[in-house]
C-alpha cells in the first residue's frame, strides 16, 4: 500500500531525515517509533506531501506520489490524523465531519458515512452541533479520527495519537485503531510511546537522529535489547 525508499527531508541546511525506508502492506499497522525530535513527524509530513522530499521516493497504492501537493495525495486515499488533533475549533462537529469527506463523496454517500461515524463515535452525535473547540481533548481526538475516516481512506497516518491524552482515553484510542485494522484499514502509526505502539502494530521501524536504526515485526522489536533499553525502560 505504501512504500518509502531512501527518503530525505531538509530544513534549510539541516538534513532532518535521511535514507528512510519503510513499507506498509494492505491491512497492516506499521509503527514508526522513536524519541521526540527523531524525525518521525518529518517523515510523515513528507509522505503526505506537506514537506518536500530532498531525496528518495514515496509510492502509494502503486503510484509515485513524491512531490505531489497534499490535496492530490489525499484524493488518492491517504488521510492524516494530525498531532495535537488540529480539529477546526470554530466549526461545529457536523462541519468538521462534512469537510473530511466533502471532496471524496457525493451528498448521499457523505450522509451515510457521517451516520457510520456517529455510530462508531456516539459522543460526536451528542455534541453534533457544538463547536469542535468546546470538546475535551479525548473527544477532539475522536473527532480528528472520524474526520479522517470520513473520506473512506485506504491508508490513515496517525501522528502521535496518545499525545496530551489521559491514560484511559489513550487506551480507548488505541483499542479503536486496532479495531479499525481488524475492519481492513491500513495504518501508519507515528508514536513516542513505543510500548503502546508495539502492542497493536504488526511491524515497526525505529528512527533515531533522522535515520532508521532498526526494523522488524513488533514482536522482534519488543524483544530487542536496543528497544528494551532505549524505549521500554528495561
Amino acid at each position: 500500500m505504501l512504500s518509502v525508499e531512501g527518503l530525505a527531508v531538509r530544513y534549510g541546511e539541516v538534513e532532518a531525515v535521511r535514507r528512510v525506508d519503510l513499507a506498509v502492506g494492505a491491512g497492516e499497522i506499521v509503527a514508526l517509533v522513536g524519541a521526540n525530535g527523531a524525525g518521525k513527524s518529518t517523515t510523515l509530513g513528507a509522505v503526505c506531501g506537506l514537506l518536500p522530499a530532498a531525496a528518495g521516493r514515496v509510492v502509494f497504492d502503486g503510484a509515485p506520489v513524491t512531490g505531489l501537493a497534499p490535496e492530490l495525495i489525499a484524493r488518492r486515499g491517504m488521510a492524516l490524523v494530525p498531532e495535537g488533533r488540529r480539529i477546526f475549533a470554530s466549526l461545529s462537529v457536523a462541519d468538521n465531519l462534512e469537510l473530511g469527506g466533502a471532496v471524496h463523496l457525493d451528498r448521499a454517500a457523505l450522509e451515510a458515512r457521517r451516520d457510520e461515524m456517529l455510530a462508531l463515535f456516539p459522543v460526536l452525535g451528542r455534541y453534533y452541533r457544538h463547536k469542535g473547540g468546546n470538546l475535551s481533548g479525548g473527544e477532539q481526538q475522536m473527532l480528528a479520527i472520524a474526520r479522517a475516516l470520513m473520506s473512506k481512506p485506504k491508508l490513515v497516518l496517525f501522528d502521535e495519537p496518545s499525545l496530551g491524552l489521559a491514560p484511559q482515553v489513550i487506551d480507548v484510542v488505541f483499542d479503536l485503531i486496532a479495531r479499525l485494522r481488524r475492519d481492513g484499514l491500513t495504518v501508519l502509526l507515528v508514536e513516542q510511546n513505543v510500548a503502546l505502539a508495539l502492542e497493536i502494530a504488526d511491524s515497526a521501524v525505529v528512527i533515531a537522529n533522522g535515520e532508521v536504526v532498526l526494523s522488524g515485526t513488533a514482536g522482534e522489536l519488543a524483544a530487542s535489547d536496543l528497544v528494551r533499553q532505549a524505549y521500554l525502560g528495561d
Partner: protein
Amino acid sequence: MIVQQIVNAIGLGGIYALLALGLAIVFSIIGLINFAHGELMTVTGYVLLASLLFGVPFPVAVVVAVGAAALAALVMERVAFRPMRGASVTSLLLTSFAVSSLLKVLFQNGVSARPQPISMPSWMVGAFDVGGVSIGVGPAISIAVSVVALAGLEVFLRRTVTGKAMRAAAEDFDVVRLMGMSAGRIVATAFVLSGIFAGLAALLWVAQRASVDPLMGFTPVLKAFIATVVGGLGSLPGAVVGGFLLGATEVLLQATLPPELAPYRDAIVLSAVILVLLVRPSGVIPAVGAQRS
C-alpha cells in the same frame, strides 16, 4: 440630528466593514495584507465610469464594475501572489506594494492623474424624510448594501462546502489541504470575494464623492487596515466590528469636535486605536489562531 449621525456612522462603518472584510478574508488564509486592495476599488471606479460613458444602464454598469473588481482580484492572485505561495510575510507584503504601485502608475498614465467626474443617478444623492428626520440617501444605501453583502457572506461561509472550507482554512490551511481540498481554489475564492467586497465599497465611496482618481483607494484601504487590526487581524467578525467601530468613531468626532480640533480627527482616532490595542492586543474579536498563540 442624533438619528442622522447614527445613520451616517453606520453607513461609513459599512463601507469600512466591507473593505476590512476583503482584507481579512485573504489575510486569514494566506497571511497577506493586500495593500493593492485599494486598486481594486480604483478598477471598479474606472470601469463604472467607462460603462456609464458608453451608455450602459446604471444597474448593468454596477454589475460590470463589481465583476471587474472580482476579475482583477483573481488575476492579481494568479499573476502576482500565486507564484509567491509559501514566501515570507514580508515578501508577500512587498509584492502587494509593488502591485499597488504598478496599478497606480498605469491608471495615472493610461487614464489621467486628475479626478474624473462621474455622474451618479439623481436618486442616489440628496436626502429623504422619515418621521421628520432627514436621512441621507448615500448613507442609507451604504447601510442596505453592507447588510445584504454581510448577510450573503454569512450564508456562503456557513452553508456551502467552499465557505466552510474557507473558515477551516483560516484556522489551519494545511489540514484543509490534507482533506483533498484544492489550495488554489480556496485562495482564488478568497481573492474573488475580496474583489467583490472592494467593488461594492468602491461603488458606495464613489457615490459619495462623484469622482474617480488613481489614488481613490488609498485612504479607505488604510482605514480598513486599521479596522482589521482593531477588530482582530484575520478575524472576519472582527473586521466587521472594527469597520463599524472606526466609522462610528470618525462620525462621532466629526460631529462633536470643535472646529479648531477638527484637523486632529485622524490623530485622535489612531490614538483610540492604540488604546484599544493596549487593552486587547489581539483585537476586539481575535482570530482563532491568535487566540491559540
